[in-house]
């Protein structure tokens, strides 16, 4: 049924996946955090996403991309990324494919299956993921100097830490961002960002506050003099 779409995606896979990564790498964060080696790996990852998308479409089996997404999330987390980074990559692929490929709704839907699989099924991680859009809006409304991607990333790292019940990777990310903000001439921005998240959480639902409490405390401990 999707044979023509699959053929076209296969033919253009490298170019489409690179275009998606080009958009992501407009953020200075990526090179700062992961360097040229990370860029090379990210572009390769994006082409792997296309391979799994093609396999899911060929076998007409969304479970292929769902399992790929959750497996890859674990792998990327262990390399210092958060769930949102993978979700963003899939989102950029959806955008590029919608724009560049005719009648691509099946591919966009299949990628959405992958994105949906990145939402935790239950637990504190899920609570934070679902509350994230509203929290981002609240934080940006109260602290206009903050960048939306930075805020969203922080919330994703918090959600991942809450779900995994350890803060080691979150702490490393906070330490990196402290340094990154200082290099940009914005020392203190990391503390400001975390405090803005803490303030936004005060008006969030109790389960969201509870989900964030321990992990946010660990993050704040890194930036509190």
């Amino acid at each position, binding site marked *: 049924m999707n044979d023509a779409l699959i053929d076209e995606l296969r033919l253009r896979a490298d170019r489409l996946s690179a275009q998606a990564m080009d958009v992501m790498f407009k953020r200075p964060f990526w090179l700062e955090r992961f360097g040229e080696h990370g860029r090379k790996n990210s572009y390769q990852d994006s082409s*792997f996403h296309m*391979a*799994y998308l*093609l*396999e899911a479409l*060929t*076998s007409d*089996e969304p*479970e*292929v991309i769902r*399992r*790929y997404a959750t*497996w890859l999330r*674990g*792998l990327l987390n*262990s*390399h210092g990324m958060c769930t949102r980074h993978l979700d963003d990559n899939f989102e950029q692929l959806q955008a590029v494919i919608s724009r560049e490929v005719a009648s691509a709704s099946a591919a966009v839907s299949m990628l959405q299956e992958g994105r949906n699989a990145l939402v935790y099924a239950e637990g504190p991680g899920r609570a934070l993921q679902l509350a994230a859009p509203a929290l981002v809006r609240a934080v940006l409304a109260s602290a206009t100097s903050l960048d939306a991607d930075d805020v969203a990333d922080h919330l994703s790292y918090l959600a991942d830490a809450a779900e995994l019940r350890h803060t080691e990777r979150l702490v490393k990310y906070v330490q990196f961002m402290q340094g990154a903000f200082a290099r940009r001439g914005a020392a203190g921005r990391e503390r400001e960002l975390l405090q803005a998240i803490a303030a936004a959480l005060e008006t969030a639902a109790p389960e969201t506050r509870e989900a964030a409490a321990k992990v946010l405390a660990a993050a704040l401990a890194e930036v509190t003099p």
Partner: protein
Amino acid sequence: MRSLDIDILRSRYLAAQLNGERREALRLIVEEGLDHGIDPAVLRRDIVAAAQLEIGRLWQENRISVADEHMATAISQVVLAYLYQRSKAAKARGHSIVVACVEGELHDLPARLVADALDLEGYDVRFLGANVPTNHLLRALSDKPVDLVVLSVTISFNVPSARAAVTQLRAAHPDLKIAVGGGAARFAPDLCRQLGSDLVASDADTLIAAVNGLWSSK
């Protein structure tokens, strides 16, 4: 041996692997395993194969590097060769099997485990190893026909290669039995239907039982 003792032996074996201690790993298998009466098949499954799954998990969690994983796997290759030599083979069953990793699949330890086990079950087995180009697989079968091909796919990224291999094998040998085995079977539900193979299994024991079942009523 109690299951706790097996767990302890596996932990010690894994530690030896990750320290690059080939002799110690083999010593554990021989002196703590075989000399204690543990069947080589149990050692292959519950020590070597189980440790390999743990190695995969450690790599995924970025706790060991690719080099560590290769070193540990190379140690298990030596151990498997030793266990094969120390195993008693069953009477010949009169069926021939080729075991091969599909094109692009570099993880050959799981396939090796299956090849050894099938050989010891009494089958005439040719093991072609890792990353076998599909056209070379076809050539191997036209030189010397077999009753069954077992295609090994560890990572789901290589499922398209498996699909191509099954399709081309079927076209060239309509009566050939084809089995697909490996970790990828856990990843993709309904893989058998998707690929058009006769059997699919994600672990060696299940695959071997299914292979034995192919000819048991004949």
